């Protein structure tokens, strides 16, 4: 049900954006930032490479590639040839790579409101303490987001917002783990070019 609602929201955003877009303008920006993912309650970092496909005095349409990553610690259990159980520390890394569409409504010359959505894959990888990859998984991930963005004359942009992330469950070493839909709060800054 949640998945259907998310797809409906994404389709609505894309259809509205495409109907209003007038392609032909080119410009872009890069941004990096960080935030807090309420489930599982961890910090994350992200980077964006943005391209503006249309912009006028009141609205802008952009597409961007978003890479969001966070890590989780884990305890690995394995059995040596002698049958003795060993425990090791490990790390699970998550990388969400999504393609996104965004509509930006300009509230003033410096401040704007943005909203959009995107979909992609989440790469999950588990390493042992020797940094050897033990297993990996790739799952569907989608997100919708909104926030406020401030543009400065020097080309610097600062934005703060929230995103709702849907993630498929992931599987590692034969076990499946539950991921929950999560709300994330974030802030970032970047440069327009």
């Amino acid at each position, binding site marked *: 049900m949640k998945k259907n609602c998310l797809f409906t929201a994404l389709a609505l955003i894309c259809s509205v954006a495409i109907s209003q877009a007038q392609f032909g303008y080119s410009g872009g920006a890069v941004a990096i930032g960080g935030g807090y993912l309420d489930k*599982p*309650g*961890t910090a994350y970092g992200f980077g964006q490479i943005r391209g503006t496909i249309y912009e006028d005095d009141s609205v802008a349409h952009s597409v961007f590639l978003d890479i969001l990553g966070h890590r*989780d*610690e*884990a*305890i*690995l*259990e*394995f*059995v*040596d*040839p*002698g049958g003795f159980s*060993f*425990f*090791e*520390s*490990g790390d*699970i890394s998550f990388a969400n790579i999504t393609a996104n569409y965004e509509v930006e409504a300009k509230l003033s010359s410096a401040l704007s409101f943005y909203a959009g959505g995107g979909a992609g894959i989440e790469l999950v990888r*588990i390493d*042992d303490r*020797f940094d*050897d990859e*033990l*297993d990996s998984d790739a799952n569907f991930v989608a997100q919708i987001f909104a926030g406020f963005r401030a543009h400065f004359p020097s080309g610097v942009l600062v934005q703060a917002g929230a995103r709702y992330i849907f993630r498929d*469950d*992931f599987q*590692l*070493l*034969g*076990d*499946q*783990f*539950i*991921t929950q839909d999560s709300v994330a709060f974030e802030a970032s800054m970047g440069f327009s070019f």
Partner: protein
Amino acid sequence: MAPVAMLAFTIPPEGGLIVMVVPSCEKKASAAILLALERGKGELILNKVSRPFVQYFVRRFVGAMIGFVLLLVSCSSFQLVDGDQVAAPGVQVSRTVLRSNVLVKKGSHLAVAYSSGNRFYVSKGGVLSGFHRGARDTTIFSETGAHLPERKFLSRIKVVRVDNAERAYQQRFRELPPLKRLLGGGSWSDQDDDYEYDDHGYGRGIRAVSVSPDSYRKKD
């Protein structure tokens, strides 16, 4: 008026140094250095510091040294660094435990304020408490029935259940082999040269391996 003694140093032309004590005289200045160096007749006159002033500085210096020593003693006491220890029966307090392996046997109570890079082995009936100053890179190998710190202090501590804490402590020096080698099959011995690793035979499904993430729960 405090007596003042004069020391005179004379450097003769042929070299060397002549030191003379000049009779005391009264001067209000606490210290004065007069340097008169002439070729062949160098002379350095040092006015000795008055006694109460010296005593004041000596007292302050001694006080500072005592404070410094007390600070060092207080910081170094109740610390365990780079050590292996079996906690004796009774209550023990350790402010800091760094890079150590500690076995807490039945009847022992070890209270730790701060822990970093440690492995604690807690037997059934043993008590490990504290950690209110924090912990990092700390693993507790505990038997069922061992008393561990409050849950709020365990958020950054790995707790691993073991059947026998004493046996785990005795095997603490056994290096864990890389997991990839284990998964690849073959046998592991204490001497790495004896190990034959068949890279072509690598297969993840050979060994039963499980993972327990901190933030995600397993699906039933």
